[in-house]
């Protein structure tokens, strides 16, 4: 429909859509572009063509350290979130559970509470007990923040699943636990993994949590980029950012294949 070109006015809509899509990708494209410049300062379009910024990033152990930190806390945070979210979703998706509204509100609350207030609170609560936020404190905070995303994906998937499957398994002799493990969970695993991927990427990209809670000895990738961007920009940052953009494109393409992500991502 939007590609039909019978009348010239029909062109307006596709052009508008294309322009907005360009708007969406432009800052990312520009970043990738500036990463290849031969100049020592940022410029777009790039002057010359070199991969030296990328090799410099890959050789610099501090980037690797920051990336590793981010990977570890994001993985631990999203897995811990799963431990909370999956049982909660299982309970909430069963009909006739009383107080399910309260539990749902509690599970979903971290989405509604402004992140910066939550993080301030976590920081202050460590202060109150005269301790510095430990590294697992970062993991706990990220787990709370990402639990809603996994829970929401799982609740959606479980409530869309035919309740007859569980009943059928039990009528064939399976116990309730067996029916869940062998029949119900395998049928929502795809949704779980897309929820997990979303939670992981949100935790990995999270800036405010480590900015408040992590000391300088434990830089994460977004914090490291943030500090560099705020104080001295160079094509090296573009190179790091480009790598993240590539990861984002891969994850987005993967996520788009599962239609449930588009509905739960927000």
């Amino acid at each position, binding site marked *: 429909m939007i590609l039909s070109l019978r009348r010239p006015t029909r062109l307006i809509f596709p052009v508008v859509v294309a322009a907005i899509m360009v708007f969406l990708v432009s800052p990312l494209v520009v970043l990738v572009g500036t990463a290849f410049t031969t100049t020592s300062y940022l410029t777009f379009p790039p002057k010359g063509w070199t991969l030296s910024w990328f090799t410099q990033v890959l050789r610099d152990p501090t980037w690797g350290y920051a990336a590793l930190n981010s990977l570890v806390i994001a993985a631990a945070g999203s897995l811990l979130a799963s431990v909370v979210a999956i049982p909660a979703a299982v309970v909430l998706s069963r009909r006739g559970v009383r107080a399910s509204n309260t539990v749902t509100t509690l599970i979903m609350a971290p989405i509604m509470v402004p992140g910066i207030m939550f993080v301030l609170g976590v920081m202050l609560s460590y202060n109150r007990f005269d301790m510095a936020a430990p590294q697992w404190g970062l993991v706990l905070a990220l787990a709370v923040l990402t639990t809603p995303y996994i829970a929401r994906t799982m609740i959606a998937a479980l409530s869309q699943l*035919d309740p*007859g499957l569980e009943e*059928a398994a*039990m*009528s*064939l*002799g*399976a116990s309730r636990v067996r029916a869940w493990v062998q*029949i119900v969970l395998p049928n929502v695993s795809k949704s779980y993994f897309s929820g997990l991927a979303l939670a992981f990427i949100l935790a990995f990209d999270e800036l405010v949590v480590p900015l408040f809670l992590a000391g300088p000895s434990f830089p994460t990738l977004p914090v490291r980029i943030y500090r560099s961007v705020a104080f001295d920009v160079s094509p090296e940052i573009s190179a790091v950012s480009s790598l993240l953009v590539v990861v984002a494109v891969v994850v987005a393409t993967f996520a788009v294949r599962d239609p449930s992500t588009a509905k739960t991502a927000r």
Partner: protein
Amino acid sequence: MSDLEITGLTKRYGTESALDDVTFTVSDGELVTVLGHSGSGKTTLLRSVAGFIEPTSGDVRVNGNSLLDLPINRRGIGIVFQNYALFPHMTVRQNVGYGLRVRRIRKDEVRERVDRELERVQLSKYADRKPAQLSGGQQQRVALARALVLEPSIVLFDEPFSNLDAMLRDGLRRDLRQLQRRLGFTALFVTHDQREAMALADRVAVMRSGRLVQYGPPQEIYNRPSQVEVAALLGRSNLLRCLVKERDAMPVLEWCGQPLIADDSIPAHAREVTAFIRPENLVIEPPVEGATSRPNVITGRVVSTDYFGSASLITVETENNEPILVEARHNALSDQDVSVGAQVTVRIPKEAIRILD
């Protein structure tokens, strides 16, 4: 021997009764259909027997032993679900073998029994497909095979054909009936389709508002409904509200001033009753002068004719604007004029009248 005995089964939600004191027995090897509209309690009945719903009171017994204390997975009852509930992540073979694997039966025996079962429902070719790759009719047969491979003595069917088109349904119904006779399992089959209920059943249990309103062979239910509502549930009927008058010390019916003589007995002291007449038992005759005074003869005008191939459904409107439905086979009509607007006489054979209160 597996008699299924349902006694005083009741399920209340607050003050609402979804199931109200239902009692009947399904004998060994019998196929009973439970017929009712949605909300009649037929699904609650089936789910209570299966164990998905805990009844408020009453009992479900198999060979005299109560099922109620047994968890769902120990009841040993096969169930074929309305939407089949096939496990989407398993192949046909894995679906059918699931119950056997749960019972820890040896692998080669599982394979052998699954193969035999798939052969029986003619699905051997599709053993390694996923349910989503099968047609509705094939999925239905997988669901049947999955339940039957466990050789249950009792099988419950929850409207298993309702998602299939009419042509397919007739064939599957015949196959199921043959299979049930051959294997000899006791079956409870829930449906809202009266044709299906009658075609399949040894006996039909008619449910209404949570109660069992009639239980008997299909012929009896069709010809001798216990209530107006049962009559209406099983196909078209004429329900004529009649006054009871006395003539020569005998009670006779009068419908719109027209006397009706019936073979059926009129309940004592009744002042008003309903005469129930199946449209196919009425006879259309050419108009006769002065017919109005003769008992069991009604004159009127044809207002519509629906052609069904073997027969036509003719709506005749009387002088009092009351509609009468007549189903006439074409050979019985010969060259009678039943086109819209034609004047006709409808004769009501006295043995065709059933009296309902």
